[in-house]
């Protein structure tokens, strides 16, 4: 989706700063607004960086703990637990930016395919996949529309 989650949050911060903050007179509301603004800025950074940071941290801890366990530095029970966890490969990480670009590439091909004069069965199969895509997107968009905006 364009704008990205991060840019949506940047817009929220801009609106809080320019439109909401000047209107607030209650110190309690002002404090809550300032904290909300900081937390949104935190989430903007976190969305961008947390995945890569967790992957890197897992790799470093795995390497160090596995080395120390193999060197006999830990009690047998702890070393066994390290070996158990290390038996599973570490999950990979791809940024939302890269994943979105990849998904957009497939969606563009879908648009081109649907613009062709297709056999009815082919169009039906493409539409079924679109229904699945829309259903997944609706799961994280529609529940947010839970009241009037104006």
């Amino acid at each position, binding site marked *: 989706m*364009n*704008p990205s989650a991060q840019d949506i949050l940047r*817009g*929220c911060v801009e609106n809080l700063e320019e439109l909401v903050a000047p209107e607030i007179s209650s110190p309690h509301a002002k404090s809550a607004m300032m904290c909300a603004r900081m937390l949104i800025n935190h989430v903007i950074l976190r969305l961008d960086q947390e995945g890569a940071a967790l992957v890197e941290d897992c790799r470093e801890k795995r390497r160090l703990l596995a080395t120390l366990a193999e060197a006999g530095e830990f009690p047998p029970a702890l070393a066994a637990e390290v070996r158990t966890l290390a038996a599973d490969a570490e999950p990979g990480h791809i940024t939302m930016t890269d994943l979105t670009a990849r998904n957009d590439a497939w969606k563009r091909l*879908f*648009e081109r395919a649907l613009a062709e004069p297709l056999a009815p069965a082919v169009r039906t199969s493409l539409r079924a996949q679109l229904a699945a895509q*829309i259903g997944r997107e*609706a799961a994280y968009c529609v529940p947010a529309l839970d009241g009037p*905006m104006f």
Partner: protein
Amino acid sequence: MPLYQPLNEPQMTAYFQQLFPDRPKARLETVKRSYPGMSRETWWVTLAWDADGEKGREKFVVRLDPPGGCMSDSPLRDESEVYRLLHGTAVPVPRLVVHEDRPQWLLEGREFTIREWIDGEIEPACLRETGDEAEAAKIGIVKEQMDKLAALHALDWDSMGFGQLLPIPSDPENCGKDDVVRHLEMLDRHAQEPLPGLREIGRWLLDNPPPAPARIVLRKENNGIGEEIWQDGRIVGMCDWEGASLGDPALDLAVAMGTTAKYWDEDAALAYYNSVAPHPVTKEAVGWYRRFWGYKGACALHSALRNYNDGRDRRVQLLTLGCLYPVMVQANLSAAAQFGEG
């Protein structure tokens, strides 16, 4: 670009002074912005001046694009022209005082429109009341809405000059298809990402068009309770003509019923419309246009994200409307089209 731009009161005062040179010491007494005013800003101003030892007063409505530009492609000048062309007809609209686009008077680069103020209420008071008398009054309100739509749809738009202002469908048979194609072309110009689902729903609407209307009419589109000015159960001013178009009258009925159906059921309202309108509208056409209205909103609101993404308009309402609403519409219409049942 600022998220909020107060009306430039010194500039506006100077403007009114040159507009009304016979009003000594003309000044702005009150300035209030209407709510919510997402697509265009509307300001209510009271002009005061000295008149023979007394104070003269007149209220006006000033309308202009937001600092980041209009959400739609429709220029403010076209909307002003609709007010000018409709004034004096059976369709009540506020009188256009002036559309100003001379460089020396622009408000931070924005042209603006001034129109007369009409006293009234946006939501008739009887709609909030209960009891038999109120129920009858509510039906009267819906009938009034239908009466005014029928009056609008009866206008000879071609001789009035609307054909030079608005796109004309190629044929009554093609009204629905032309409406869809215009919005697919809007996506071609403004889509912020690939949207195969929205485009395919457009194809489905094209493949399943509504029955042709008897004739092409002038439509208000954005109409219903909350969109007009009411006095004593009568519409005295129809406002917000930004979406005015030529096409099938069924669209106006589908939109109106979005706010009137809870006061009088749709079948009864449609039967009443057909008893006062020059040409009947079918229930099937209203149903098709109800879906189209959702589709149109999804295309237009997604397209408005261009103003956010290029930094011109960062209001969060654009995000709620442009990111979430189109997904909900796609979910509803893809289910109606049975996309998932392949």
